[in-house]
């Protein structure tokens, strides 16, 4: 009995669902307290809001939603903007981080000189930079992309930098003896060897790309999920705030899943446990 229920590969999804249900139940319970509900909303209302955002079908008034549930299907433009910003920021930040990380890891003098400046840049509160980005990039999507890039970039950068320096010296020496030039070393030794470092940073930065885009919108924009959240906060509509967070989270997970897939494909060479086959 217990063995069948025991978490394992088989019933993984089931267990994840259990955790989800527990979380939702806890949330619902906590929201029974009026004051708390004021901050964390109610899951049912949040679900209702998500419904109205995505679906064009209205529901008549019922027990859960005394006012009924309009089916506005009006989130798509906001969501589209936010996703676009996120994906752009993720892509640009990753490329910049990779590029600069590789360059500095392979150019010890440049890295020694620039080191304090990069660390200084990383410790700047980004929120304060938002107006400057607005100045440079306008109030459109690019200022949000810039803000999110500043989050993604550093995470990727530091990991790539470290990853490259962790390359096995023997493998590196071997490749050099085999006649690899600088570019080839990069492609066949540094990059593959740093892959697991890069992916570790990508997992963190997927989330932060969303955070950056939303915070950017939150600080000033005309559309986007962050805009919806800001509007809702201004009107004490905490359910909408959380609906926004829920929607974003779902998309963040989807993007992360994509990253995970690419990772799994690139990392087939790694030894895994249990490669013997049970007969």
């Amino acid at each position, binding site marked *: 009995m217990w063995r069948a229920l025991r978490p394992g590969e088989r019933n993984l999804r089931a267990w994840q669902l259990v955790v989800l249900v527990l979380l939702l139940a806890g949330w619902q319970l906590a929201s029974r307290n009026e004051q708390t509900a004021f901050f964390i909303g109610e899951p049912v209302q949040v679900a209702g809001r998500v419904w109205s955002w995505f679906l064009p079908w209205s529901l008549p008034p019922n027990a859960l939603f005394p006012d009924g549930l309009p089916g506005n299907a009006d989130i798509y433009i906001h969501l589209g903007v936010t996703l676009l910003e996120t994906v752009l920021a993720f892509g640009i930040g990753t490329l910049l981080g990779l590029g600069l990380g590789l360059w500095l890891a392979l150019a010890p003098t440049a890295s020694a000189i620039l080191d304090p400046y990069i660390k200084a840049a990383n410790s700047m509160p980004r929120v304060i930079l938002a107006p400057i980005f607005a100045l440079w990039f306008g109030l459109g999507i690019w200022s949000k992309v810039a803000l999110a890039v500043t989050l993604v970039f550093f995470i990727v950068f530091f990991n790539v930098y470290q990853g490259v320096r962790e390359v096995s010296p*023997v*493998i590196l*020496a*071997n*490749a*050099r*003896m*085999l*006649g*690899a*030039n600088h570019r*080839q070393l990069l492609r*066949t*030794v540094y990059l*593959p*060897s740093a*892959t697991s470092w890069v992916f570790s940073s990508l997992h963190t930065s997927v989330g932060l790309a969303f955070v950056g885009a939303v915070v950017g919108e939150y600080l000033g924009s005309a559309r986007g999920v962050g805009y919806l959240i800001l509007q809702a906060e201004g009107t004490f509509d905490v359910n909408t705030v959380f609906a926004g967070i829920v929607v974003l989270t779902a998309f963040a997970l989807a993007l992360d899943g994509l990253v995970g897939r690419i990772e799994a494909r690139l990392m087939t*060479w*790694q*030894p895994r446990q249990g*490669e013997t086959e049970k007969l």
Partner: protein
Amino acid sequence: MQAPAALELNGITVTFRAREGGGRYTAVADTTLRIAPGEFVSVVGPTGCGKSTLLNIGAGLLAPSAGEVRVFGEPLAGINARAGYMFQAEALMPWRSALDNVMVGLQYRGVPQAQAREQAQAWLARVGLADFGDRYPHQMSGGMRKRAALAQVLALDPDIILMDEPFSALDIQTRQLMENEVLDLWAAKRKAVLFITHDLDEAIAMSDRVVVLSAGPATHPIGEFSIDLPRPRDVAEVRGQPRFVELHSQIWGVLREEVLKGYAQQLKKAA
């Protein structure tokens, strides 16, 4: 005028900074070694004496503390581009299959993909791994990895071949097959080979010259023996020849004494 040596180590001294602030360790002291083009030189010496260090110097991977390295007459700066080096440690890229590992050097050279693949496959077959091209290093046995590394180096057809205990992980039979493979290649193309081994039989059977190194620290050559056995040789058969046995006992005498000396030092210090 003599033709310039393929690889020439002139008065090489290597001193390692032992650790933070701590003392130094002189692994190799004032060693001179010349390998003529087409010459097969073996180096033997007690473990830890500095053989790999010498090879690293010859490959340009380590800069000597003193002395000079010349490759075909040119002073060496940076990597020795004319040498192929089979490392003592495992040096296959874990993210490439055996075939891809053998191909990688050819790819660096710009050999077209299809041709590189074909050559690499041929080399894998020569080292007995024709069926294992799609294995990643962690899926191969120790000996298979060594053979793949051998194929990787030989596939590039370098002018100077540096090999650091290439056959120590192989069984006797496979080992002899590999030895003959290398000898054939060498005979056909007359490479300069610098070969490190612990197996005196192997050293004598394959080389033109055997260099014996002293025990560390401050290793230096203490004996050089010309191997005047007739070529071509078959490594299994040559061992039976009386001249072989004679050379063996000569070299063995020098070597044995050296090893015991080093070991005795150790034991004395430990006591």
